[in-house]
Structures are given as structure tokens and as C-alpha cells.
């Protein structure tokens, strides 16, 4: 049996099984078509009722560079990236050595036989698979072999992890839904891998999957698709964009949904989607659409945000609704275009020159992407201002499990829009007058048939009637009203979620950091007996509940996925000066999604002196 290479330290064989609680990393070459195989593996575990999450760590390149996909099974439902890798599937010659050397003792490695990795270490389990030989047998057409080779490791892993092959088949058929031939071919490959493992690879490692029922009724979707759905159900009708990773798939998904679900009875579109010439144009079109009374949005990432600065200031100052999705990636400049970060917080909060401030929403889950897509429009129209939704690559482009999304129960909030009839009753209106004391003026939308409906949207100084003015008192009056409006926004953005309370030390986090925090809290409690409180921010400007939370704690850790602790700084600017020294910063900014262990270690380094 020359093809089998098994190294099994006797200790490993006796180890207690690790069930439904480990991570798998598949290392392949970008462009080799491993995505389908990885999705099938993820789905199979999901279908067996085990909570699972998948993360794609890919290079900014089309083909040829190393790429990794990590799958985490967690019986406790932890879905953050796990720092430690338990099982590596090594398919990429370029990184195989490095990947194996980085493993913790006790891990397992499945590798392509020619890589000959088994002598690298004696404290991990190795399984060698002759992929080329197997693929030659299952796939007669040489040029298709590259595509199905990866599905073989799914079969091997199924055997090693005790996955139900019926579920594997189901996942494959789902993956290749309409392409029956491809489905058959891939299913054959998976079976061949499975047979090979049965014959050649006696189980040596402790990792296995057992059926649970923790995923029943749940969906798997990525944040960008969820956001697109949310926007569609929130009545978006003008969508403009300029392609940029990781936001492109948000609009690409939206195009597909809208074409299917938003045609009227005559087959005509109830929307316009435009690929603009650049981000300046994209956001300019959004402002034009918002001014006209339509729900308009765009999606972009950091470089696009930079370009949108001037127009965002205009939107703030002329007070027209706009929704901008910032699916954040790593900067500055081009940075790491396909890696994740929360690095645009400070920039967006004050985007543009002069005194400009913008509400932000921080979704942490796919369900919240769906929900906040609608909330952002309601907020933008209520406040008559650009509203930013701060997603990130991890949320936007990775698959997450979730409860199905809840159908919106509230009608669309269109804000203070005056009709021709109301204008007649009122005898006209002053566009920028603070009638209600909340800083939010009344507007009319162009086309309102009334001689007094018109107003002049201008980015230059204007008085309550929107007439041009450079008078100091008019300017101050207007800016003070805008500040009052921003204070109103504090009450209108989603309130922070106080997950845990009552102690003296707390954590504040936002967006995708949430998942690592939840896990870190349990680590801190279990391993060190320290129970920390936790508040998750959902919106900016910060509400009273955030101020109160900080006030009643002695120390509060603010977790940021950026180098310059941007949320920590933003909070410092907002809270009472006497509370500022309570804040401590925890940062994570290597481009990988934040993990619990890093948070736990960082907090303990400061707590346990």
C-alpha cells in the first residue's frame, strides 16, 4: 500500500474525541474552483444540525495566489473566526509547509500526496491522499479534472469526520442546482474520496461531527445579499454604484432580486439601477434621487468613501436623504482590498469639510443587514440627511447562518414631506425653519404642484427660506439647527444592545466584533472566573444608554478592528470629560476577522496585572 502515509502518534489515538467543536482550514490556490467544495463541506455540517461558520481569506487577485477557507463547527454556536486551526486540508504547495508548521500540537492534516508533508512534525496527524490518481479514475475528461479534484477532499473529510454522505449528496445537488451533469460528476468525486479514505486512512485524529438540531429552520446567506434583500423590501428605487470589493456583490445581488421581484404587472421596472462612472457620480445620483423623493442608495468601500466626501457634505447641508453602504475593507489607500476591517468609522462620522456629521448604523449579523437596510432609509428620510451603514468584508462577503429574516411590520417612514394641499392650508413654507423644535425642517419634493412648493437646494449659505445669505446670524442659526437635528438623531438611531450588565467592568463593541466578544466573555468567565458586561453599539450618534453604561462602569474596554481605535476616539469625543479615563482600547487590525482569543488575551493583559 505505497500510497498511504499515516503517522499516528499513539497518544493521539487515545485522546478523547472532539465533537462538533473544531475548525477546518482548506488551503488552495485562488481560481482553482475550491469555493464549491468548501461550500458543500460547510453546508453538510450545517445540515447535520451543527452551528457552523465559514470565512474566505482570499487575495486581491484573480488566479494563482494562495487562498484559505476556514470552517468552524461550534456546538455552542460560536461563529467568530477561531484563531487555532484544528484540521488543515493542504492543497497548495506554496503554503503547505507554513500552514502545517503554524498548527497547534494535536491538529490533523489532510494533504495532497506529492506535497510529502508527513516528516514536518511528529505532533500532528497526517493523512496523505493521492488526489491525481483518484481524479483520473472518476473524471475521464482531463480538462474537467481540475474542477472536481477539490470535491474529493470533501469525500475524504466526510469519512474522517463521520459526515453523513446523504447530506453531502444533498449539499452537492443544491450547489449545482440546475447543472445535473456537474452535480453527478462532483458527487462521483466525493464518493471516490470517501471510498479512498475507507480503504486507506484509518482514523487517527479526535475530530468528528455528530448530529445535533441547532440549525433547524435557519438560513445561510452573506451580509451583502441580506442587505440587498433588506433594501428591496424597504422600497429602494434608485440604486447607483461603482464596482469595488467588497461591496459589489451587494448591488449585484440587488439587481437579481429586483429583476425578479420588483417588476409591475406590465413587466416594467419599479426601479432604476445605474452603474455610474465613478463613486462621485454614484453618490451624486443618490442625492438627486433623494431630493426628488425616491429611496436612493449606493454601496461602496473605503476608497469610494474618500471620493464621496464633497457630495456627502452637500447632502448634509442641503438636507436630502441618502443611504450609503460602506462595506469596509483594509486601508489606508488601496490597503488590503480583500481583507476585513472597521477602519472607516472616524472618516465617515465627519465625512467632508466643515462641520458635517452623519448618522451611522453598525450591523453585526446578516439579519441586521436586512433590518438596517430598511432602518437606514427610514432614518435618512426622517432626518433628511445621508445615513451610512457600516458593514465590513467579513459580514458582507462571508456566509453566516441566521434565523430567517422577519418581514417588516412598519410602513415606510417618509418624514416631513409637505403636499400641495398642506401648502395651501399653510400658505407656504420655509424650507429650513425649525417648526417642531427637533431641528428637522419640512420639505417638498420637486414636482409638487403648488406655486409655493419650490425651494432652492444649495450648498452655499442659506437662511430659513433657503435664500442665499452670508449673514453671520443666518449661518449660526442654520448650523445650530443642524446640531439640534443631530441631537434628535441620537434618539432615532437603533439603541445599543446591552447584552450583559450589573458589574463594574464592561466591554463596548460593534459590528462583526460582536461574535468574538460573545465567545471571549465565555472564555473570560470559564478560564479566569471574570464576568464582564457587554454593550453592543448599533448606531451613531450615541444614545443616552451608551453614556449611562459608561457612567456606571469603572472600566470599559472598547473593541475596534482598526489600528487607531477609532470608535474609542469617537466615544471619547462624545462622553462627559470625567468619564474619558474609564475607556480602554482593544484593537485588532491584521486584516483577519477578529477572534475571541485575541480579545481575551488583550483584556486579561490589562485586568490581571
Amino acid at each position, binding site marked *: 500500500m505505497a500510497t498511504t502515509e499515516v503517522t499516528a502518534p499513539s497518544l493521539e489515538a487515545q485522546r478523547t474525541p472532539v465533537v462538533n467543536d473544531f475548525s477546518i482550514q482548506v488551503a488552495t490556490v485562488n481560481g482553482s474552483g475550491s469555493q464549491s467544495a468548501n461550500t458543500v463541506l460547510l453546508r453538510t455540517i450545517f445540515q447535520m444540525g451543527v452551528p457552523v461558520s465559514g470565512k474566505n481569506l482570499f487575495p486581491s487577485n484573480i488566479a494563482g495566489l494562495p487562498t484559505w477557507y476556514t470552517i468552524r463547527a461550534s456546538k455552542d454556536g460560536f461563529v467568530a473566526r477561531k484563531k487555532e486551526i484544528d484540521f488543515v486540508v493542504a492543497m497548495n504547495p506554496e503554503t503547505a509547509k507554513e500552514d502545517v508548521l503554524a498548527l497547534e500540537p494535536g491538529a490533523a492534516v489532510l494533504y495532497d500526496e506529492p506535497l510529502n508533508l508527513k516528516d514536518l512534525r511528529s505532533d500532528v496527524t497526517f493523512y496523505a491522499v493521492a488526489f491525481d490518481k483518484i481524479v483520473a479514475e472518476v473524471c475521464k475528461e482531463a480538462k474537467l479534472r481540475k474542477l472536481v479534484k477539490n470535491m474529493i477532499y470533501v469525500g475524504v473529510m466526510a469519512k474522517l469526520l463521520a459526515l453523513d454522505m446523504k447530506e453531502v449528496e444533498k449539499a452537492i445537488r443544491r450547489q449545482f442546482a440546475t447543472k445535473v451533469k456537474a452535480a453527478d460528476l462532483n458527487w462521483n468525486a466525493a464518493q471516490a474520496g470517501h471510498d479512498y479514505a475507507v480503504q486507506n486512512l484509518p482514523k487517527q485524529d479526535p475530530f468528528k461531527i455528530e448530529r445535533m438540531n441547532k440549525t433547524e429552520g435557519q438560513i*445561510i*446567506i452573506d451580509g451583502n445579499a441580506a442587505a440587498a434583500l433588506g433594501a428591496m423590501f424597504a422600497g429602494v428605487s434608485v440604486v447607483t454604484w461603482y464596482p469595488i470589493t467588497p461591496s459589489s456583490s451587494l448591488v449585484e445581488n440587488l439587481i437579481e432580486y429586483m429583476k425578479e*421581484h420588483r417588476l409591475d404587472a406590465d413587466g416594467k421596472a419599479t*426601479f432604476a439601477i445605474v452603474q455610474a462612472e465613478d463613486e462621485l457620480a454614484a453618490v451624486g445620483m443618490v442625492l*438627486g434621487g433623494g*431630493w*426628488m423623493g425616491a429611496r436612493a442608495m449606493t454601496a461602496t468601500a473605503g476608497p469610494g468613501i474618500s471620493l464621496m466626501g464633497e*457630495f456627502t457634505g452637500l447632502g448634509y447641508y442641503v438636507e436630502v436623504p441618502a443611504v450609503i453602504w460602506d462595506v469596509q475593507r483594509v486601508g489606508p489607500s488601496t490597503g488590503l482590498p480583500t481583507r476585513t476591517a472597521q477602519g472607516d468609522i472616524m472618516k465617515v462620522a465627519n465625512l467632508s469639510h466643515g462641520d458635517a456629521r452623519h448618522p451611522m448604523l453598525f450591523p453585526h449579523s446578516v439579519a441586521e443587514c436586512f433590518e438596517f437596510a430598511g432602518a437606514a432609509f427610514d432614518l435618512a428620510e426622517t432626518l433628511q440627511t445621508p445615513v451610512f451603514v457600516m458593514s465590513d468584508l467579513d459580514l458582507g462577503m462571508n456566509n453566516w447562518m441566521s434565523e430567517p429574516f422577519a418581514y417588516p411590520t412598519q410602513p415606510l417612514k417618509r418624514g416631513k414631506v409637505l403636499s400641495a394641499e398642506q401648502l395651501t392650508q399653510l400658505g407656504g413654507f420655509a424650507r429650513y425653519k425649525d417648526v417642531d423644535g427637533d431641528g428637522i425642517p419640512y420639505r417638498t419634493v420637486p414636482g409638487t404642484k403648488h406655486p409655493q412648493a419650490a425651494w432652492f437646494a444649495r450648498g452655499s449659505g442659506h437662511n430659513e427660506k433657503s435664500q442665499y445669505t452670508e449673514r453671520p446670524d443666518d449661518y449660526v442659526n442654520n448650523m445650530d439647527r443642524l446640531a439640534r437635528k443631530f441631537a434628535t438623531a441620537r434618539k432615532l438611531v437603533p439603541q445599543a444592545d446591552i447584552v450583559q450588565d450589573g458589574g463594574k467592568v464592561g466591554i463596548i463593541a460593534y459590528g462583526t466584533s460582536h461574535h468574538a466578544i460573545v465567545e471571549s466573555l465565555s472564555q473570560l468567565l470559564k478560564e479566569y472566573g471574570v464576568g464582564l458586561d457587554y454593550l453592543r453599539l448599533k448606531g451613531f450618534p450615541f444614545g443616552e444608554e451608551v453614556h449611562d453604561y459608561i457612567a456606571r462602569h469603572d472600566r470599559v474596554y472598547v473593541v475596534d478592528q482598526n489600528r487607531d481605535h477609532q470608535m474609542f476616539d469617537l466615544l471619547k469625543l462624545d462622553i462627559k470629560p470625567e468619564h474619558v479615563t474609564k475607556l480602554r482600547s482593544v484593537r485588532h487590525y491584521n486584516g483577519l476577522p477578529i477572534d475571541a482569543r485575541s480579545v481575551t488575551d488583550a483584556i486579561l493583559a490589562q485586568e490581571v496585572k
Partner: protein
Amino acid sequence: MATTSAPQPKTNHIGLTVLDYRGGKTTLCAGCGHNAISERIIDAMYEMGVQPEEIIKMSGIGCSSKTPAYFMSRSFSFNSVHGRMPAVTTGAVLANQKMMAIGISGDGDTASIGMGQFVHLMRRNIPMIYIIEDNGVYGLTKGQFSATADIGSKLKTGVINDLPPIDTCALAIMMGATFVGRSFSGDKKQLHTMLKAAIAHKGTAMLDVISPCVTFNDHEGSTKSYKFMKDHEEPLHDLNFVPYFEEINVDYDEGTTTAVQMHDGSKLLLKKLEHDYDPKDKINAVHRIMESHKTGEMLTGVFYVNPDAPSFLDLLNMTDTPLAQLPESTLRPSKATLEAIMEEYR
């Protein structure tokens, strides 16, 4: 017994008087060509009987971009950022295709900072009237060259322009605009007619209107320069002093050439296209424009018209009801739809 009642003001076919088309008082320099263009817009809109509430007046930044404040107060207006009026207009028109958009830009606004958006607007054939108030300089920032300035033209400071001008008309034609013309702010008759045709046009109507800047086209040697006037206008040494100029007026026939004395003393050679010129021939149009550069004439007239090309809105196949007016029941798909989609993700 005859009673003399006050004469009824004249009204257009929708019953409005020319006053209903007026705007605020201009704050531009007296004699600025831009003011003459505003007047022509007022007349054309009045004559065509356009409902002011159905107009959106769009602009970027510059003296020219200020002009929407000086006509049609009953219309909605958006003074956006420098060079990016095309995007705002596109978004607005998408949201409500029943509104008629008129955009006013400058040569700096269009041919420099806004060049990218300009060509994309032309290429999309967005239904709107796009007017460039073209004076070859930046007015509002006090006299720098714009990208339409002619080679050899001189700034107040004596700097000579050595870069070739961008011909916005030739560019617009090549990019896909479907109504392209050039006129002169002082040619009442031609501009008036051209504007009325533009109002009637279905796609992008791009008009480059030569519009002299009285304040920054007045270099040394001109008898009508600011300095000359100031030197000869005895007591006025006030900083706000603005020399009064008559707006330039010309009236001449198709096919002929006329020389116009500009405020700075220079001469502008205007030539009108002959009446048998075929404006449907794109290649000939560009050819004629290029030829006029060689002869040093400023060719005016409607260079190109294609009334049949589909506009961007046609390509989008939108509902007749403007998107901005669709009810929630149309905008939000049903609960069953969401449930079906969720099922696909299970």
C-alpha cells in the same frame, strides 16, 4: 359709456404671464453674458408654455451655475458641487422622469472638473437641456483660464494660454448627445429659437453658449477694460465699483459671418450655419466644427440632431408612474415573497 379697464397682462397657452417665469435679482456683474442667457430662458419657457413646477433647474459651481436663481422662481432648483451637476440631474430624472431638467454649467465646471460627468451624461442621452455658459475663463475664482480658452488668449495678468481648447460641441456629438448647438449670448433671435427647439427635444440637448465675462476678459490695451473705466470714472474709487457695460447684441443671417467687438476689445468672428445644413449628419457636423477651428471662426447653429435615439430612461424600461411617486404597495414585495426567498437560502 366706455370704461377703461387696466390692460390684462399677456398670458401664454397655460395662462401664465412672463412674470411667472422670472427669478431673483441677478448678483452677477452688469453686462455679464450669463444674464442675457437667463432672459432668453425665461422667454423661451414662457413661450413654450412650460409649467414652472415641472422644471428642475440644475447647476454646479461658478458664476454661471448661480444663474438658476435668476430665472423661474417657481421651479425647483439644485445648486450642487463643482462639475457634478450631471450626476445629481441623472439621479433626479431617474426618480421622476416627468420633470423637465435644465442644467446650467460653466466652461470650467463642464470642461475641467466636470469633464468626466459631462461625457457620461452625453453618452447616456439623459433627457435634459444642458447649457454651458462659455466665457473661456473662470469667473467666480477671478479669471483663471478654462479648458475652452483659445490658444493665444491672454489673461488679465498677461499669461498666455498655450493649450488647445476643448470643443464641447464636438465632444458632445461624439459622446452621443442627440441635440448639439452653439450660440452666442448676445444673439437674441438665434438663442431664443435654439432654446425652444431644445425644450421640445426628447434626449440631451447640449448648447454651448458663448457668454462674455466683462470682468476678467479685460486685459491691458482694451478701451473697455476695468482699469480703463476706473481711470475715467472720476469719483468712484469704491471697492465694489463695477463698470457698467452694455450687453452685446448681434443680429445676422444664416450662412453669414459677423464680427463682434468683445468687452476686452478683442473681436469674435461668429459664423452661422447655412439654412440648408443637414444637422442629422454626425460626421459632417464634427467636420464642420473642426473646419471652423482652422478658419478661426466661431461657428454657431444647431450642429447635430437625432430625435430618434433612445434615451437612458427608455433603456431602463421603467413604470410610467415616476419612481418617486410609487406607493408602498408597489415598492415592497409581499410577505410571501420574502418567505419564498428565505426558503431558497435554507
